[in-house]
């Protein structure tokens, strides 16, 4: 066939959502791994620091993964912004009143605030990277050094403990992670729908999985700040 060009296809609403979905699911996978890694914090400083060290030394794969992550974030954020502005243009005159018609609608606070939660998450991401990845100890620093056997490694555990002692940081983090849960509550099943995989037999399962995953990820991320701030570890 092909009376079309890929150029048009790339700009199509469907392709935009398709790439949102692919990058979104990849990011879900990433945060799930990230969250699991975070849980090592409970095990103890040694396990946490060694895990972090192993991760950054997974060369050259770590660069590839980071590059892919970066691209995924850029695509996801850029598409999110253009979709959102496009949708605003699609209804230039707003309703005086617009309500949800109720079931079977899937419209929730989560689904209508994707762009808001997304933007906050983006802002958080930058602060998060500055605080941790590029924070103290990124370049060898004696006050943030732990030992792995003979080898000096970055003492990320100490940094985490310091950061989350601050109420602003701890509660900011907790709040943002709850927003992440909200984002995923709609985002997960929506990604499947955008990929075209809705089927009456499985869509219920996918929808429920999305909710469970959102809760698990959000609360998984809460473990560290809560336990640090309330001095549980």
């Amino acid at each position: 066939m092909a009376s079309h060009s890929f150029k048009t296809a790339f700009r199509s609403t469907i392709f935009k959502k398709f790439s949102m979905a692919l990058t979104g699911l990849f990011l879900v996978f990433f945060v799930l791994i990230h969250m699991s890694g975070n849980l090592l914090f409970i095990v103890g400083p040694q396990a946490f620091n060694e895990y972090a060290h192993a991760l950054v030394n997974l060369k050259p794969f770590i660069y590839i993964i980071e590059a892919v992550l970066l691209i995924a974030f850029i695509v996801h954020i850029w598409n999110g912004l253009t979709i959102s502005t496009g949708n605003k243009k699609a209804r230039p005159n707003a309703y005086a009143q617009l309500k949800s018609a109720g079931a079977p609608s899937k419209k929730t606070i989560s689904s209508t605030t994707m762009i808001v939660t997304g933007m906050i998450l983006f802002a958080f991401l930058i602060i998060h990277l500055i605080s941790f990845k590029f924070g103290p100890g990124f370049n060898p620093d004696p006050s943030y050094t732990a030992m792995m056997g003979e080898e000096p490694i970055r003492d990320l555990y100490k940094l985490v403990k310091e950061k989350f002692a601050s109420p602003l940081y701890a509660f900011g983090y907790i709040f943002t992670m709850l927003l992440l849960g909200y984002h995923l509550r709609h985002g997960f099943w929506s990604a499947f729908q955008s990929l075209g995989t809705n089927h009456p037999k499985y869509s219920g399962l996918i929808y429920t999985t999305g909710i469970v995953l959102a809760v698990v990820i959000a609360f998984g991320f809460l473990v560290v700040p809560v336990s640090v701030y309330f001095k549980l570890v």
Partner: protein
Amino acid sequence: MAKGIKLHLKVWRQAGPNEKGSLQAYTLNDVSEHMSFLEMLDVLNEQIIQEGGEPVEFDNDCREGICGMCSLVINGIAHGPQKRTATCQLHMRHYKDGDTITVEPFRAKGFPVIRDLVVDRSSFDRIIAAGGYVSMNAGNAPDGNAIPISKEKADLSMDAASCIGCGACVAACPNASAALFVGAKISQYSFLPQGEPERDRRAVRMVEQMDEEGFGNCSNHGECEAVCPKGISITNIARMRREYLKGVIS
């Protein structure tokens, strides 16, 4: 007959496509619960005419829920509060004495207002023109039973085909997306052997026409399914996406 209820209406009035519109207040003192919503507007119009005003224009035709010409967003919900019911079949027994009802046109860039509550939905015709059919000329069809089609597929096709083209999906969508309308049409043919030869072309052309008309992007809120007078499922939107991607790749 029992005395009817009193209603306060706030109706969108707009003199023309480029004029500024606003909500105007009216009161009806004796509305029978047996009236349909459109009959209530008829009564309002008779009242306005008696008072020397210009009646409210609103689209309607069959008044039995199948032509898809009636529209209206009633208290924030396209086609009003009753499930699987077009405005013309909504009856006043769903309202109480003293209720205030806000009536607005379907709003979307793809549906510009013509006057009052009347909007231009010709964008839907242009989307259909881009591929919502089987390209065959009259006179060269094989026997109707030449190609068996499974009952399940025929039923699914009919589910999608039952779309009345009213545009409530667009009106209710927070993004003013036409995905359910287009998805339903693409789906109808995707189940049938007759639709097969131009399946890819159809999906690509219809989706690209949809985009060109300025409809928003589907964010999977699912409001469309909830207001659809025929209850068409958003499964059809997912199917449209598959069909489109397949069409683009092949």
